[in-house]
């Protein structure tokens, strides 16, 4: 492998990894606040891309407007999901709630295929197709947008959680829901808020990556999986570790794909199995020692 190629793999890996980081944070926030693994997370990403395609193609509005509309719309979808599907079943065991989110994912996918498009759809890059060279790797303007917007979102997310009252309330719910409500925090609203945030993050990811990759109703499953792996690497709670895991996964995928491109997809699944085994064992010992 030449150094040019290595640089290319690293760079593409970073771009993909940034997307995974956004998805992973979405998983993290809903999981920690509500205890539910939201399998519709991947569909939020897909919706971001598909809705911005709709706005661009049918309404011919500029990309910044499409971006805003799509993020707001998907956040609304997130709220609706929480209110209509999760909240009525809130006393059900976590497994049932997870299955509800899977059902929601299938429903969202079906709706998009029925009303928007079944095919892959293109979205123009934000600032054109230009590229330049960095250490031998070809970098497109759009991939800079991906990394940049992901960075801003991650930092914003971190600031929200650590510096605002709402963030404190979210964290309180994630630590102990009952104690938090005794302190006057409405856990149900926090639950809705967490879904809103995860939907927004997912949508942002979906919109920025769409010009690079086409978007299609079926991309949610694979992307959700990869985000989930990254979130699992960070144990769903450790933000820096989640982001690192996401970037790492992106890069490892590229390097693995370079060695054996037929097995590129298997890398994410392999990583998932590895992480689950390691974490399960860690949980076992933690449970035992308590």
């Amino acid at each position: 492998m030449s150094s040019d190629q290595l640089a290319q793999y690293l760079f593409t890996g970073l771009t993909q990894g940034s997307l995974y980081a956004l998805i992973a944070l979405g998983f993290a926030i809903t999981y920690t606040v509500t205890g539910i693994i939201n399998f519709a997370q991947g569909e939020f990403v897909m919706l971001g891309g598909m809705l911005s395609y709709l706005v661009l193609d049918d309404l011919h509005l500029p990309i910044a407007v499409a971006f805003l509309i799509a993020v707001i719309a998907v956040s609304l979808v997130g709220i609706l999901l929480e209110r209509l599907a999760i909240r009525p079943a809130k006393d059900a065991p976590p497994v049932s709630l997870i299955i509800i989110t899977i059902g929601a994912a299938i429903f969202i996918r079906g709706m998009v295929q029925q009303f928007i498009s079944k095919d892959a759809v293109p979205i123009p890059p934000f600032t054109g197709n230009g590229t330049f060279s960095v250490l031998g790797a070809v970098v497109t303007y759009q991939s800079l947008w991906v990394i940049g917007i992901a960075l801003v979102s991650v930092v914003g997310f971190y600031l929200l959680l650590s510096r605002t009252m709402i963030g404190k309330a979210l964290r309180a719910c994630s630590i102990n829901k009952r104690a938090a409500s005794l302190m006057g925090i409405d856990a149900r609203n926090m639950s809705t808020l967490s879904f809103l945030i995860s939907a927004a993050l997912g949508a942002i990811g979906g919109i920025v990556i769409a010009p690079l990759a086409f978007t299609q109703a079926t991309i949610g499953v694979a992307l959700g999986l990869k985000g989930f792996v990254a979130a699992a690497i960070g144990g769903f709670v450790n933000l820096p570790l989640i982001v690192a895991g996401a970037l790492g996964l992106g890069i490892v995928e590229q390097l693995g794909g370079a060695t054996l491109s037929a097995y590129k997809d298997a890398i994410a699944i392999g990583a998932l199995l590895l992480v689950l085994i390691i974490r399960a064992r860690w949980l076992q010992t933690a449970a035992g020692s308590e």
Partner: protein
Amino acid sequence: MKRVLKKALFPGLIVLLMVFPLLAAVGCGDGGEETTPEATSQVTPTATAQATPTPTVAPTATPTATAQATPTPTLETYKIGAVFAASGRNAPLGDPEKKTAELLEKQINDAGGINGHKLDIVIYDTESDETKCVLLTKKLIDQDNVIAIVGPTSTGESVALLDTVTKAKIPLVSCAASYKIVQPVEDRYWIFKTPQSDLLAADQIFSYAKKQGITKVATICDSAGFGKNGEEALTMEAPKYSMSIVDKESYGPSDTDMTTQLTKIKGTDAQAIICWGTNPGPAVIAKNVKTLGITLPLFNSHGIANQEFITLAGDAANGVIFPAGKIIALNAVPDTDPQKPVLQKFLTDYQATYNSVPNTFAGHAWDAIQMVVMAMTAVGNDKAKIRDYLENDIKSFAGTGGIFNMSPQDHNGLGPGAFLMVKIVDGKWTAIQ
């Protein structure tokens, strides 16, 4: 926090491990089955052979053709089954196929049906999913009692059906490309196909490349049915043109970034890239090639012979070269070609009905249905007889895909004249020599 983790994470993990295969299987498009069984077949009492079965005046509209106990002689409806990927990733192929079937059904019935029998084409949408394809085909055979089946759209789906169709002893005319669908012919007694085979396409690409002085190529193929068989076809045919394949890459059907594979190819001494797959993969690859600044000629398979490729790839589509059926560049076909009037009429009719241009895949469905209808016209409603007709009596049939000569050794029936080499220039297809 640990307690929350303990409670929900563990069962969550187990659920994930169990559920992910389910997710993956279900993930290929779920708007609910888009089944379009054709409208209830009305039985018209025919005292004499009428020119048009009148649709409205019949006193009783019965759903099946055979349950009548009335004394008026009635002609049973001829039922053909069709399984097309009208949604999902292969929708750009399967939807035109479905439209063609509906168009032909109407045309044939308006002209009096098949020897006075009404034609009913029962069409199901496989949603580009192999499992659904098999289930729907079984439904066609067991519940709808069709006499022959047309489709499916993709190689993967066709291969999945081989057993089902052979066991049910029902003729199948596939609209998918791989030679594996009809070979080895001893094991494909009931199976035929209309698209030009991938071996032919590989030959076409190599012979063109050889003329340009190319001797080393790199391939990048879809890891699913069509692409995988394409890679095999390329591997098989390369030595015949003194071509060496210096690097073989592959990608998943729904992968959205192939810069890794292309970066690797960039580092080899390949003089051209051959991409083999159906959308959106080749469009992503075309874009990636431009982004990475790769200037090598990019060849593709006939899998991109649709407008979708150009829409998705945008500017990056220009310069791509691929073999295509004549339907794509009709003005390059000489008037003396027996295919020309056939293609002309099909194009005109399809455009008039659907306000869009048919692609090669629509043509494959046209060829398949016409052949089955020809067989039914000659031998009637018998599965085995239809099969025999298809194998032995389709000779010099000018279809959209080429001139068909079926035989017991060749259930595809096409030769080298079936393809045109096409280059995309300014977003349009242009025939090249």
